[in-house]
């Protein structure tokens, strides 16, 4: 049981917001010590694993091209394209962003972020769409729109990213399984991650469109005064 102390150290260390890297290293050293490993052997194990797992940090190789593209307005162009989209409802707009975000993640692009995309672009568009359709909403629903826009970024990011061969998660999987003597190719892990990326598109869209229906029902008096063009499915 005492060997589990490392896990305890990680849980407590991260809970009280100590430096993640330091907490993990200390957890490793303490676990080794209580298990009777000599200090030098622990350090050697750490060093060896660090060297053989250098490929986990291979994403650095893609930074020059991404940095250069960002300097010349990659994000601004994406924002411009998304801004041109006219979508009548919160649910549809958010679903569309989920698709774009997820597909971009599969291509290894971080075309997203709460700071870079949601706050300046997607949230105002969703709020605009809601205001057009429902007029002034209750506080509760205003918060719901914000919450959903916060969530969509996470959905696309989490479940799309492993579709990219050099994603941190993919390389972590390859590395951890290698320590367990199972040899995997990154590309096979990336391919195996595609179905879940497609599933989140469906599950996420269902949630967003559900809120469309909910809002439509609640504010139906206000919609009826406007055109029926954008009736929901």
């Amino acid at each position: 049981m005492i060997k589990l102390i490392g896990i305890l150290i990680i849980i407590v260390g991260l809970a009280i917001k100590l430096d993640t890297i330091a907490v993990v290293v200390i957890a490793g050293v303490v676990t080794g010590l209580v298990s009777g490993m000599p200090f030098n052997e622990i350090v050697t194990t750490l060093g060896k694993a660090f060297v053989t797992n250098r490929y986990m940090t291979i994403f650095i190789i893609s930074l020059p091209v991404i940095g250069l593209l960002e300097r010349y307005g990659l994000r601004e162009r994406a924002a411009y394209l998304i801004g041109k989209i006219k979508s009548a409802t919160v649910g549809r707009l958010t679903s569309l962003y989920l698709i774009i975000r997820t597909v971009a993640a599969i291509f290894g692009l971080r075309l997203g972020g709460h700071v870079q995309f949601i706050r300046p672009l997607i949230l105002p568009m969703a709020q605009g769409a809601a205001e057009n359709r429902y007029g002034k909403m209750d506080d509760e629903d205003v918060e719901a729109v914000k919450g959903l826009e916060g969530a969509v970024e996470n959905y696309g990011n989490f479940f799309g990213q492993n579709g990219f061969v050099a994603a941190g998660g993919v390389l972590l999987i390859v590395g951890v399984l290698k320590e367990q003597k199972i040899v995997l190719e990154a590309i096979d892990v990336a391919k195996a991650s595609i179905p879940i990326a497609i599933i989140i598109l469906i599950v996420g869209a269902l949630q967003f469109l559900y809120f469309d229906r909910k809002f439509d029902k609640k504010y139906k008096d206000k919609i009826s005064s406007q055109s029926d063009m954008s009736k929901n499915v």
Partner: protein
Amino acid sequence: MLKNSLTEILYILIGIVCFYTVYKTLKDKNHPSKIGTALFWGILGVIFTFSRIGLVWGNKDIFINDTLVGYMVLVLAALSAFKLVKFNKFDESSSEFKKKMSGVIGNKIFVPALVLAVVAFMVAQFWTKQLGSLVALGISAVLALVCAFAITKGKTSEMAEDTRRLLEMVGPMSMLPQILAALGSVFAAAGVGTVIADGIKFVIPQGNILFGVIAYCVGMALFTMIMGNAFAAFAVITAGIGMPFVFTQGANPAVASALALTAGYCGTLMTPMAANFNIVPAAILDIKDRKYGVIKYQLPVAIVMLIIHIVLMYVWAF
């Protein structure tokens, strides 16, 4: 072996990025933590470039020994712990310039990004045996960069500065996966996985695939919720639950492991411990309920996704 020496050359390129960061840090007169930052990236650069340098020309005997690397890793951890790794300002393009250029260049700006992904995929697909996924990525990164220079007409000095900016913004956290793998390695040597597995054996019968899959997926989600980090959970839970209850029962390793990690992400959606995904955005989006304002909308989706993970792993991995 061509694959090994090309991979080693990739690491040297990464080392060069680290060394460039050191150079710019030392030249910066107003840097808030000059020595600590330079030391951090310098050590990382040395490990990347020289730890197996002999492999470039196929000589296995020229390397830095693992114990020495281990001590260097301890120094890196200490520098990170005492918050000595910082960055100052970068020479970044202004937002007006970005706006203007995005209009001038237009949609062509996406071409290098597509080259990066598509070439990496194609090379990895056709030459997996000869080159492997990593070298494929290296090749695609070089091609995409050439393409990016052609389209943006940018300067190499700009590229160097932007690379350093992106690396320094991630900072010490960029080596978290590597550190976690090292932790997993110590856990394995110390037999931590066996302890967890022995504990779980009391709860679920070994040899039952469905129970194994449920334990792996739910274990990933729960541990991620507690730790706030799916990567850390993956190293621990794969050794403790994944190996004895899923992989040794004949699961397809790529499928089961890929689903296990995203099952962990379902946990990330449900925990305030993952502050940078759930709490910070609530603040950025000005949501009143800072702690659960995003989480409460993610909760139903996370639970549905977790159930789908279990079903998918059970059906598809076996």
